[in-house]
């Protein structure tokens, strides 16, 4: 992904900043600048998601494009954020067989990929199982 394309969405990718329609309170992540329900009468403003959710469905990517080949195998999932919207993310687990539908997850800050050896590093949000730390 080119530098301007990555840069343009840095707040959204780092901090789960999506949008919400103030008319119907529907929330969007990934962000939308037009509410499909309220259409032009909807007023869209930024909305920050808390970063907790649940796995809706998932897969284990064993064969990836070049940019992700060194991360395989990894869990790719569609999660439902607690505020409503669903989004495609990586879920970081030690053993890919740990992934489950319904698994609770929380956001973490990770490297998503890089533009080759000398290009920019794409940071962003991944998710991990939301388990409490040992006492």
């Amino acid at each position, binding site marked *: *992904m080119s530098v301007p*394309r990555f840069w343009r*969405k840095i707040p959204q*990718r780092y901090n789960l900043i999506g949008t919400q329609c103030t008319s119907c309170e529907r929330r969007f992540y*990934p962000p939308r600048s037009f509410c499909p329900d309220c259409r032009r009468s909807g007023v869209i403003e930024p909305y920050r998601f808390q970063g907790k959710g649940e796995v*809706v*469905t*998932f*897969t*284990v*990517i*064993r*064969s*990836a*494009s*070049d*940019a*992700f*080949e060194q*991360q395989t195998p*990894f869990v*790719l*999932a*569609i999660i439902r954020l607690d505020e409503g919207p*669903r*989004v*495609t*993310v*990586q879920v970081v687990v030690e053993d*890919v067989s740990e992934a489950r*539908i319904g698994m609770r997850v929380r956001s973490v800050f990770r490297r*998503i*990929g890089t533009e080759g050896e000398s290009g920019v590093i*794409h940071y*962003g949000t*991944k998710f991990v199982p939301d388990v409490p730390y040992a006492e």
Partner: protein
Amino acid sequence: MRDVAVIGIGCTTFGEKWETSFRDLFLEAGALALEDAQLSGERIDALYVGNMSAGRFVEQEHVGALIADYAGMASRHIPSTRVESACCSGSLAFRQAVIAVASGLEEIVVAAGVEKMTDVETSISVDALAAAADREWEGFVGATFPGLYAMIATDYMHRYPLTREQLAMVAVKNHYNGARNPIAQFHSEITVDTVLRSPLVADPLRLFDCSPITDGAAAVILAPLERAREFTDAPIKVLATAQASDTIALHDRRDISTLDATVVAARRAYEMAGLTPAAIDLVEVHDCFTIAEICAIEDLGFCAKGEAGRLTEEGETALNGRIPVNTSGGLKACGHPVGATGIKQVAEIVQQLRGDAGRRQVDGAEIGMTQNVGGTGASVAVHIFGRA
């Protein structure tokens, strides 16, 4: 609107065609279609070509003009248009051609599809195909196409009684059919074991659940139905053309295991043709992955949600079954040159309805259907054909 008929079809063989260039692929398919329609190229009024990603695969855009030029039509200056809708490009080129003829604006129109995928390394073609999903919010985090369909499969298998073996049977059946299709990429029959022992690509999908990377082209020629018999003894009438769209990203769908765009396009097509699913004798569906065929069978109305696995296991979708699915071998065995697939589906149905399908002929086929998907279901085209 006037009725439209297919008067000629042509397909290259599908596969890794190292010696054939992008433009020669099209030329070969076009020539076969003209020959089939016993038509001279000078009589073509317009050309629509479905192509997903010549820009990535052969670093060539402006494909409409290129194809017309190398087909020897530059001096005639006919309108030539590229249509892009990811893996649904072929069907949408076909639909544009149908609309052009039906409207009365054009008379004899070629609808073609072409994709040359093997001129780049596999990882580049995988990445090019990933552009059919949402690059910003799916591709960016590492989603591949097999990965997205695998998430459909995970969701589906969690909710409905589909076994891993039943999923494999889709590929087994399509390889059986492909082995009986001279243009198919794969001519080998396989077993459930072949699928289950192949490497995992994206759990639960294995290598033999996936359609291959393919070079190929297909072309069909359309004419007003009232003039069709000038060219052929067996014109095939376009009974319905329908198209629907949906969210670009899988995560935004109403239901992950249902392609709403298929449901809606099918409903529109049935209405236009005045038919129900029971009237369809055979169907070519978009089995880019085995799970896609399972969803398609249901979303097109051939059985209730959750029953397609059993239907497949019981042989209902086989050549001699109640509703033969993918007699060409489908994308799985015939191959999937993405832009050409939709046109190849039309060519297969035409061949079947003419009774020319040889060892894979469905007895007494009179009404056939095609379903072609772009992305994970963001674009779907459904067409219904009948003997004229």
